């Protein structure tokens, strides 16, 4: 117990210091203190902090005013609280930071809360992130959220998992591009399940010389 307490004392201030180090010189000084306190708040609420840091860095890189950076970071915190509330209401727990971020991102891309909740409840852990992205892709192209969610749930019942659910939404969008109506596109892909075409792998020549970025990565990891 004493060891854990000691570690908490050490990691708390160290973590805060590392955030300040990342923001120093990249975010307007006028925004630093407030952003820092928002990050502390997120830590206390057990919410992911990386999306807040990324939003601040993004604003600084885009030369946005301090006020707008603070507003954007505050909004991000609210969005993650909403995501966590949805996950709790879905009876789903314990949940990871990645899941909070995935749900938050999906809500932000316009998928209605009840539909996100339906997907969270219906899908196995390893498929939630991909399914939420697939759903957001379809909604962004004007597909009915409930029908789209129905197709994705059906796909997991037909043993499609993880990234294969992105292949399902890609197949639906492909059918739309070929002239089918939205209901037809969904029905067509439903008929193909589980044999939806996989995403093509990039040819070797196009990925030769691929590099890793130097700075720390701020992904919304796949839950």
């Amino acid at each position, binding site marked *: 117990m004493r060891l854990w307490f000691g570690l908490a004392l050490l990691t708390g201030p160290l973590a805060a210091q590392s955030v300040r180090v*990342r923001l120093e010189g*990249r975010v307007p000084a006028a925004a630093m203190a407030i952003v820092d306190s928002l990050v502390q708040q997120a830590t206390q609420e057990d919410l992911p902090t990386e999306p807040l840091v*990324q*939003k601040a*860095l*993004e*604003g*600084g*890189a*885009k030369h*946005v005013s301090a006020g*707008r950076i603070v*507003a*954007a970071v505050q*909004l*991000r915190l609210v969005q993650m609280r909403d995501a966590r509330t949805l996950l709790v209401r879905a009876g789903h727990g314990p949940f990871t930071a990645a899941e909070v971020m*995935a749900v938050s*991102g999906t809500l*932000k*891309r316009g998928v209605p809360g009840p539909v996100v909740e339906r997907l969270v409840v219906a899908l196995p852990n390893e498929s939630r*992130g991909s399914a939420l*992205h697939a759903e*957001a*892709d379809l909604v*962004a192209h004007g597909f009915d959220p409930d029908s789209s969610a129905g197709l994705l749930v059906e796909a997991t019942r037909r043993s499609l998992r*993880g*990234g294969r659910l*992105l292949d399902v939404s890609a197949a639906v*969008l492909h059918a739309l591009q*070929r*002239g*089918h109506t939205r209901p037809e596109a969904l029905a067509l892909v439903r008929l193909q399940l589980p044999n939806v075409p996989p*995403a093509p792998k*990039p040819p*070797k020549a*196009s*990925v*030769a*010389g*691929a*590099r*890793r*970025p*130097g*700075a*720390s*990565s*701020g*992904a*919304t*990891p*796949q839950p």
Partner: protein
Amino acid sequence: MKPIDPRVHQALDREIAREGLPPELALQVARLEAAAAVLGTAVSQWAGGSVEARVMAAIRRPAPSRMWRLARWLAAPHSVTLRIRPAWSLALAAAVALVTLLPAGDETPSVGEQEGIAQFVARFPGANSVHVAGSFNDWRSGTIPLRDADHDGVWRAAVVLPAGAYEYMFVVDGERWVPDHLADRTVEDDFGRENSVVIVRPAAR
């Protein structure tokens, strides 16, 4: 699979008359012929245009010019056969091995199990530099350059990243932030503009 009576096959192949078949075999013949008849119904045309219209449009399209065909030939990979003396082939093999062993700038990198490759492509003719910045590199605008290797205004980069979703934009000539118009996922950046989103899937799938 249950074999069927050879007389059913003979009747379907018109080798014997079906009139003399026992009722249960005649029923099997009828069932298969009915299935074939149903499958023989015409298929309605695709909403996007008839096959004939598409084919005739392709046939009527003017043939590409000689210069265009030459450019396409030059750009396409071709196999080349070399005929060399055995003694020289050893020297050539040694030279190839030496070159291969030297570190090269454009090798395909080793990618971890939970990593994938994000490909960025953008058209900016006239640009002096194009970089990509996003949540994978703390939005630093100068660390990941795209390259326009053949100076045709099309810039490219491939980046190894952990699997996940990332927001990003292109930065042209060090100052102009531009969304990826080829990306089919976007999200508001909360600064009045839109970020593009890329999803990196694990390479081992």
